[in-house]
């Protein structure tokens, strides 16, 4: 099955810093999504982005499907950005999302 690798596994930032999280996948995908799991365990959908670029406030994401990677950018990080960021993909219609192991982000004030 498809493999999803996220990097870095851990990231520690000072408030106000910018960061880039990467997701590589081993095969063509028809669906790619980014999620944030906050310290209370809630999983929030950030982006549905099988290709192209999207922005939502301080967050933006880019997926280059032909090169099999996606990037999540966090600008001017805040302590509330702390948590685990997951990338998830599916290879074809009708299949469930397969999750990467996540990037754990800690933002300190």
């Amino acid at each position, binding site marked *: 099955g498809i493999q999803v690798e996220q990097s870095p596994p851990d990231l520690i930032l000072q408030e106000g810093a910018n960061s880039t999280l990467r997701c590589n996948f081993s095969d063509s995908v028809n669906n790619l999504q980014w*999620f944030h799991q906050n310290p209370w*365990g809630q999983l*929030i959908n950030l982006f549905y982005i099988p290709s192209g670029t999207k922005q939502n406030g301080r967050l933006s994401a880019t997926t280059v499907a032909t090169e099999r990677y996606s990037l999540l950018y966090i600008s001017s990080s805040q302590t509330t950005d702390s948590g685990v960021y997951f990338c998830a993909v599916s290879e074809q*219609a009708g299949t*469930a999302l397969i*999750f990467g192991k996540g990037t754990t982000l800690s933002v300190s004030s």
Partner: protein
Amino acid sequence: DTAVSQTPKYLVTQMGNDKSIKCEQNLGHDTMYWYKQDSKKFLKIMFSYNNKELIINETVPNRFSPKSPDKAHLNLHINSLELGDSAVYFCASSHLAGKGSPLHFGNGTRLTVT
């Protein structure tokens, strides 16, 4: 207005017991899922139902049985609970057709088996 709601939030039980987790979504999605998150935060798909029909059944012990009475509900029943079943179980929903749609998760059920 909770989009995907699951109950209970916490479940503490002894080995050998049978327990159920309920899930409901009010987003009008046609597909619902159960994911398991282990102690290392790894999320793995267990089951998926599309319009009340089972479409994904990963390698999960037979002790786990999903049931979907209608496309807005998906319950998970677990028989003869074991220590290794301790985890957080997440219900989720989306549209499946074409390239799918954003996946929405419930808040999770933390199951502890003692």
